[in-house]
């Protein structure tokens, strides 16, 4: 047994975005410590600058088709990973811009806030590149750790504490499940890397192991029945953190789910389709029905997020390359709409200090811009043409109908109608009801930028999706190797029975 580290200096190029971001994180931290008098906005712009450089680096990778694997396949940088990293970094940048004003609510440690946001982003970047169970565990916990802190950042606010605690308890529970699942899978296969598991036999241990891993990831994406922390945490957390939480970890967890289901478990598709169909139907239906009763916009968006996850699971259940394309596309559409909607929530709560839907009455008069933006974001989430969400939903449905998942599509379509109801309730408050206090609402510059980016994304993807579909199609090219007509497995009924 000798030490052998096959790592050339050029290999580190693949890790360049992560390495750079780590260094930048330290720079931000050091600046924060060393110059306590520096206004914290500058730290925000400093972090954004680092993130933009990283984003540029990734864009360069994407354009030049840089890809490869490191550490014996444990770290992959394929085009899908690059796609997800770009999505995550984009979300991070927008979230930081959206939180500049909000940070003033924190009594302590305003600078560390940005560090923790960047740190979570870094963790999620590792997540989407993780190609083995250990990396998944380590990076998942790394990313979540930042969120544990961020969610309870409003230290004097009981709701924030409570949300943070619920999130933490379910988070560590998920970590426990994940650890045990990993141990079982390791015992059954002797491997940690997903692509080595593709030939594994479906023994009970493996099935239980993967179910536990699925449950843990289900907690992260917030699919029913693992959703119980979502509404409380979204409600309690500082709104920019909620924004971040509603997009980036979901995207990263879906990257892992895609790798697990399509690479490691590609041959067992008939088995897991049933599971995914059930989770998808439950998520959509439950979340949409409960959302109707919500009075708080953050909770409404939390439930809407659960429903969106249900929609994304339709694409995963399709289990084809087209399904994956649809998932990526949907995430992109969801990113813009959700960040935009939350940005409006932040702007409104900065001005009027509440998140109750009732207090949105007359927003159309008080701030036509915010109301119009919110309208478009909500309609995009509901899936109304010509907005991005509609194309995303259609893409997913088309992918699913090609696989003949009719039940799922019918449920999904019905849920579009249900969801339209509660989105329109908000629209009604904004446009139809008259304001109590007609004073206009001021919006800060960075916030405007975020909302404009959200609007631009929502409209452009909705009206001209071709470049984006091209992008997602090329991003999932790697899966073409794993999913093809050649894979045929008789439905192993005995597996379901244990």
């Amino acid at each position: 047994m000798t030490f052998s580290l096959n790592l050339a200096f050029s290999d580190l190029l693949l890790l360049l975005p992560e390495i750079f971001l780590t260094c930048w994180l330290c720079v931000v931290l050091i600046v924060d410590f060393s110059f306590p008098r520096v206004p914290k906005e500058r730290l925000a712009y400093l972090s954004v600058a680092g993130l933009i450089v990283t984003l540029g680096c990734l864009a360069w990778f994407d354009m030049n088709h840089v890809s490869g694997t490191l550490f014996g396949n444990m770290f992959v940088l394929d085009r899908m990973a690059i796609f997800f990293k770009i999505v995550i970094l984009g979300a991070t940048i927008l979230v930081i811009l959206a939180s500049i004003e909000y940070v003033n609510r924190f009594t302590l440690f305003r600078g560390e806030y940005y560090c923790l946001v960047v740190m979570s982003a870094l963790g999620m970047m590792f997540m989407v590149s993780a190609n083995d169970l250990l990396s998944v565990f380590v990076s998942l916990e790394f990313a979540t750790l930042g969120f544990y802190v961020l969610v309870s950042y409003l230290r004097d606010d009981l709701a924030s504490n409570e949300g943070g605690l619920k999130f933490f308890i379910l988070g560590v529970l998920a970590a426990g499940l994940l650890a045990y699942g990993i141990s079982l899978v390791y015992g059954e296969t002797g491997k940690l890397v997903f692509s080595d598991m593709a030939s594994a036999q479906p023994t009970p241990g493996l099935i239980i192991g993967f179910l536990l891993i699925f449950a843990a990831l289900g907690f992260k994406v917030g699919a029913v029945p693992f959703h119980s922390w979502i509404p409380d945490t979204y409600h309690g957390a500082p709104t920019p953190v909620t924004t971040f939480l509603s997009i980036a970890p979901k995207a990263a967890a879906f990257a892992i789910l895609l790798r697990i289901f399509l690479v490691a478990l590609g041959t067992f598709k008939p088995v897991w389709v049933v599971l995914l169909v059930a989770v998808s139907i439950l998520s959509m239906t439950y979340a949409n029905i409960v959302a109707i009763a919500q009075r708080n916009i953050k909770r409404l968006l939390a439930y809407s997020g659960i429903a969106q996850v249900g929609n994304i699971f339709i694409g995963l259940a399709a289990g084809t390359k087209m399904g994956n394309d649809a998932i990526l596309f949907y995430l992109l559409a969801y990113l813009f709409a959700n960040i935009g909607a939350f940005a409006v929530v932040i702007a409104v709560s900065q001005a009027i200090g509440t998140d109750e839907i009732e207090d949105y009455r007359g927003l159309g008069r008080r701030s036509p811009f915010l109301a119009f933006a919110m309208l478009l974001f909500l309609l995009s989430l509901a899936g109304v043409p010509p907005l991005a969400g509609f194309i995303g939903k259609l893409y997913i449905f088309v992918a699913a109908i090609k696989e003949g998942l009719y039940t799922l599509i019918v449920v999904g379509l019905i849920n579009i109608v249900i969801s339209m109801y509660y989105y329109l309730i908000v629209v009604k408050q904004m446009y139809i009801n008259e304001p109590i206090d007609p004073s206009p609402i001021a919006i800060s510059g960075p916030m405007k930028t975020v909302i404009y980016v959200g609007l631009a994304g929502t409209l452009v993807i909705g009206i001209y999706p071709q470049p984006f579909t091209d992008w997602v199609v090329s991003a999932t090219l790697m899966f073409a190797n794993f999913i093809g007509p050649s894979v045929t497995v008789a439905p192993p009924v005995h597996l379901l029975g244990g």
Partner: protein
Amino acid sequence: MGEYALLYILFAPFAGALALIFISNRQPLLVRSVAASAAFVSLLASLYLFYAYDPVKGGFQFVQKCEWSKQLGISLHLGVDGIGTPLVLASSILLFAGIFVSWHIKDRAKEFYIWLLILAAATIGVFMSLDLFFLYFFYEMSVIPMYLLLGMWGSHTKKYLEMTDSEGLKQRDSVGFILNFGSNSKEYAAMKLVLFLSAFAVAALMGILLIYKYSGLNTFDILVLREQANLMNIPVLGTTLDRIIWVLVFFGFASIAPLWPLHSWSPVGHAAAPAATSMLHAGVLMKLGHFSIIRVAFEILPETTRELMPIAAVLCMFSIVYGGFVAFYAKDTKYVIGYSSSSHMGYVFLGMAALNYISLSGAVIYMFAHAMATGMLFAMAGWVYDQTHTRDIPSLGGLSNKMPFISVCFVVGCMASIGMPGTVNFIAEIMIIVGSWDKYPLQVVVAMLGIVLTLAYLFKMMRGLFYGPMNQKYSHAHDAISAVDRLPLLIMISISIGFGIFPMRLYDVVRSGVDPLVARITRVVPVAQTHEGSGVRSELIIPGATSTVPVVASKLLPLSSQVSRGEGK
């Protein structure tokens, strides 16, 4: 202009809406003129379209196609045939008229015109889509502007306005107000409209997705699908797939038409909407249903249409009679007109159900004619409402002294709606009745009864509004004097009468679109040959599965289809 006419018609309103975003509400004249000029461009282009359309050549003309999404097989494929052309014309006329009808809107005029333009553009988009995706796209897009137009500029019924006690107010704002069917608010109307239409649109989308999957062509293009989609005789759920698709598509789109059991959103929506929106709604939006049924069900599933269209023939009777009776007893001007529209839409279904050249042409012409007639009526009801702020017929009366011009126009509008000779409605009604007499004599008798009913309730309303003793409360009401106010009515009247006297151009255009369609549907196929045909087709599936064109026809079990999984790539 030339071959790009469709793009002008479709995108002028969008461009207008976009331009309006950057104009402040503080310049009302600029706002109005931008909206009016956008509509005017659209109107000019559609007039050009109507006269440049070549009925001898027939088929789809002015076709524009550009690829929109390779992966999903969607292209922005626009084109009009003899059926779409008059409807595009009707939409742009009503849009233009609607902008002038709502000239006096003070509250958030900019937003009003933006949504109105988007609504009109979306309906126009449906009339010229040759791609199932874009048909649905524009269809669904027209729903949301309706919500905002109704909610923001609509009006409540009297009963709702009386609800001023604290409990009533709470009820208005309660989250579950949609479940409170006693409420007559504009919010309720708007929400009901959107949810109802979306729910049924989603059914239609399911049908469209099934067409997409089972045609196996990876395209939404109607022209390709109607030639190549083999959707017949695939057994599903104890019936055949084509019937399921047909039913989904038919009822999905018939909800907006509105066919009898699915009509309940429509009068409420009409009543709550501001005048220009009611005009577009009743005049054009309801025709989206008929038009989409013709485009999707008739074009792609002609044989199933022949088989199942009697459903429409049965339901349209209820539509005509029920709508007529409710209109007769309604006390609210807009309810009367709203139910009359929903009753008149029954005639279109009758014309469509009979499936012959005369009746189908009559149906299409009726759509055009009804757009003008109901547009006039709603414009005038809106005018009366603006002057008196009530829609309650019993409390009105004797307004003819105050507004002679409106009352004269109202008479003309009633005449057109009833189908007096000299208006284009007359021609359309005659064609529907003559054309469907052979096949559906009972329905024709009912339709005649419906005409009598129309006469009764429209004259009753006319008497209630304009004649009899006058309520002094409304003495301040005045007539439409300025050119701006008179223009929309004059346009619609002149079009209605003009085509009534010189219908040949319209008839030619419509026939050129209807003829190939009816020829496809009524193609006489002996029963034995149909069976043989299906046998041949199912044999063809086997080589088809190995060729590059994936045929999934025989694979209905989910999750087990090897071929369909291969398609994903």
